[in-house]
């Protein structure tokens, strides 16, 4: 009997244990599904893991505070072509300036950064109100390794491109790249996040975040 009772108690314990395991598994499954659903937005480890401490009063401080869950937005249409912005009403100096900016952009794409810089500076002189030239000048400076100068141009670009979410996202993603290059990883993350909030389709920002996640994780494992 005793043996039978013991057997029964053992079976009950096993059953309870199995239920517990099952519950845990279900919980894990639910969590996994939730995570899978939200994995479109990169979920970075805590920023304090970065070996570089966040600057006092910097934007990174804001990133550590709990934030409202951002709305998932559709990627913005590509507005990269400046020539497409030309209409018959475009003033001649603006038209020339946009075309030259496009030329500068092509030079950047082909890796001729110094030439692109010279061309874009000329463009700036023709039409100071062309907002895109500031972004591309920043990009040229980024490529030649003048990160602080690039950030300076991006500061201006941010002002003159306000109201154009696609371009602002480009500005923030390039800011992120510059901060990453300068070692301010927290600022880089916050700028990439800003870019993705404005345009979830911004590849530079999402790639930058993925890369940063790797870079930040490595030191934390040591």
């Amino acid at each position, binding site marked *: 009997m005793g043996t039978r009772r013991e057997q029964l108690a053992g079976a009950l314990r096993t059953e309870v244990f199995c239920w517990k395991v099952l519950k845990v598994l279900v919980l894990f499954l639910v969590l996994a599904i939730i995570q899978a659903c939200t994995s479109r937005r990169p979920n970075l480890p805590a920023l304090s893991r970065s070996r570089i401490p966040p600057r006092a009063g910097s934007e990174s401080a804001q990133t550590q505070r709990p934030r409202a869950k951002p709305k998932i937005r559709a990627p913005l249409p590509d507005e990269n072509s400046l020539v497409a912005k030309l209409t018959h009403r475009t003033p001649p100096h603006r038209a020339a300036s946009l075309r030259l900016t496009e030329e500068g952009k092509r030079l950047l794409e082909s890796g001729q950064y110094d030439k692109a810089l010279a061309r874009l500076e000329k463009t700036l002189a023709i039409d100071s109100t062309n907002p895109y030239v500031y972004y591309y000048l920043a990009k040229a400076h980024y490529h030649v390794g003048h990160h602080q100068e690039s950030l300076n141009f991006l500061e*201006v670009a941010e002002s003159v491109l306000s109201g154009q979410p696609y371009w602002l996202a480009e500005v923030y993603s390039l800011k992120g790249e510059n901060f990453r290059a300068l070692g301010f990883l927290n600022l880089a993350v916050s700028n990439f996040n800003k870019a993705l909030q404005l345009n979830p389709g911004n590849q530079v920002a999402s790639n930058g975040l993925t890369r940063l996640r790797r870079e930040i994780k490595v030191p934390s494992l040591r």
Partner: protein
Amino acid sequence: MRRRPRKKSRFTFLKFSVFFLVLLATCGIVLGFWYMRFLEEVVTAKFEGRVWKFPSKIYSDTFLMYPGMKLRSEELEAKLLRLGYRETDSKLQFSGDYRFSKKENLVEIYLHNFQYPLEQFKGYPVRLLLRSDTIATIKNKQSGKEIFSLELEPELVTGLYDRVWEERRLVTLDEVPPLLVRAVLAIEDERFYHHWGIDPISILRAFMANVRKGGIVQGGSTLTQQLMKNFFLGSEQTIERKVKEALMALVVEWKYSKDEILENYLNEIYLGQKGAQGIFGVWEASQFYFGKELSQLTVGEMALLAGLIKAPNRYSPYRSVKTAASRRNIVLGKMFEDGFIPRRQYERALKEVLRPREFVKVVNNAPFYVDFLRKELAENYSRQVLEAEGLKIFTSLDLQLQGLAEKALSNGLKQLEERYPHLLEAGKKDRLEGAIVVIKPQTGEIKAMVGGRDYQKSQFNRVVQARRQPGSIFKPFVYLAALIYGSEDGARRFTPASLVEDSPFTWNYEGQEWMPENYNDKYYGLVTFRHALEKSLNSATARIASEVGIKKVRDVAYRLGLQGPLPLLPSLALGAVEVTPLEMARAFSTLANGGVRTNPLAVKQVIDQRSQILEKRNVRVKKVITPQVAFMMNHMLKGVLDRGTGRGARRRGFNRPAAGKTGTTNDTRDAWFAGYTPDLLAVVWVGFDRQSELGLTGAQAALPIWTEFMKQATAGSPLTDFNPPPGIEFIDVDPLSGYRATPNCPRVVREAFFKSEALLAFCPLHPSPVAVGGTAPSGISSWPLSHTAR
């Protein structure tokens, strides 16, 4: 007895003489050998070391053209001539040709090749269609494709040379057409390949010819001797020089090949004068006389170049086409005679027409700018390097604006002296002077700089060397500090409509009293910020500075771009500090550029003779104030021109949207005007070097010069205004009350506010039933009843 000693004496004398002669000969040989060795060393050093000095050249900025751009055909033609293009009636054949057709309204230009810092530009023909002083289209004539922007190469401003400007480009013998070499040999030294540096036959022939003619009509110098003369010796006609020349020629012929000597000769020879520039070598001469590459020269042109060697200025086609043609024909005859060209070629070359042409001298039209560049370059390059290494220095200089600035300053000062004779009186011991600096606000490029009235009389560059009191042009920094920071205690924010008391006022600062006074002791009571700035009211401005704090004012001035020491004293608010016009230009350009500060940029790139970039300076920017505050300030400073102390500019016909500020120091020793459109800024200073009293305000002395310059400089450029950035709201304000205007307000000023600060109550002085609500203007808590009675 007597004979023996005589014989002995003769023998001894003979022996002694022989010994002496042998000794003399030995010494002669040793010395001669030593001297020849010395000459060899000298010649070798010249041939194998640095042979020539190449002055560095300073270039202006490039000139960009695009469809829709305003461009008068006369302006373009003048530019092309300065760049060395030549007009042709027929089809464009060579790089450097251009053709104007008034009938078809078009200009065709075969662009020059040009070595830019980052690329070698290969010229091609283009066609510009002009429609009522506007470029309608630009097309590449070769491909037929439309071009959307076209850059003309920069203009040569001047060279940096020691004493003589030798303009020369080296070529190898392979690059020189064989026929040109033959032409030179035919006329200068037909037995070149047959002698050893000296040609006795030529000397004899020349001697005979000279005897026959009874004077010197022919020389017997070989080409090698000529080279030696040019390399080492002067042109004095002495036996010593001739002997030295002959000996050197022998040494050179012994040590170097004929081709090496010929190559050096073709690069060395003097072939004419272009203003300050001496034209040396065949490549430079080909460019100067024909605007062509050596390979493009015709037989006749080659013959003329060879003919010029004898007397370049006498036979120059620029001087007389007839003389040049007859000299060319002599060379052609010699070439035909020596069998270098067949009869057909000879006859065809004789028929080549030499067209009378003019050249534009390279005259340094920007001496103060060049001095400034020299100083900037001296940080990295020694004087020797600049004068001998042939660097190319690309700058921001715009020669057209430079010319306009020179003219505006010189005419303006002259007119002032005519209008105010006391200036001439003072000028007996201290001549009236002025300075003007022009900057592109978006890039910081210094487009023009005139540091004084007459460079020949005084090289003191007042734009960068004269530290003078800015007076009232400092005031915008006070207002800017007020708009940015509000009051020092943080209790109040200010807007352009804020009210301030303009009445006698004492500022107690660190135990000292300071009492600013208004111009002519005239006070206006309660006024808006705008009104105080437009009328340049000292008392009101000082009151604002005292509320904001002088530290904040200084901080803003530094942020905008001032660099010198600024003492923390109340009088700083009214510009009692010393600054240079360039510093002020930099600070104001930050405002013009929407709060983005740039670095003044004169030198852009420096490249060496192999086109390697030695230095590159980029446009540098830094956002130092928000675009909204910068816009509010620009909006207020526009009022200075429209209604305030700068309204004289409007009376003189300058009607573009522009902002600016007049400046007069208390003792009227300095008169200033700093003004700008969104695309161009100019600062003008007028005064005496020895600080004599000017007795004129900025509006009287500096503003007319600024206006004259800006009218010309902006003519034809697109009309632009300061664009309000997001976050700015315009509200109509009654300038008397500083409140939102009602329909009953007699005068209304449209004011720019931060959107968040734009909630103004309606004007209590001119109430209207349709306008109620809002808050009081910042700066005052309630409307003073006494004010309503005014």
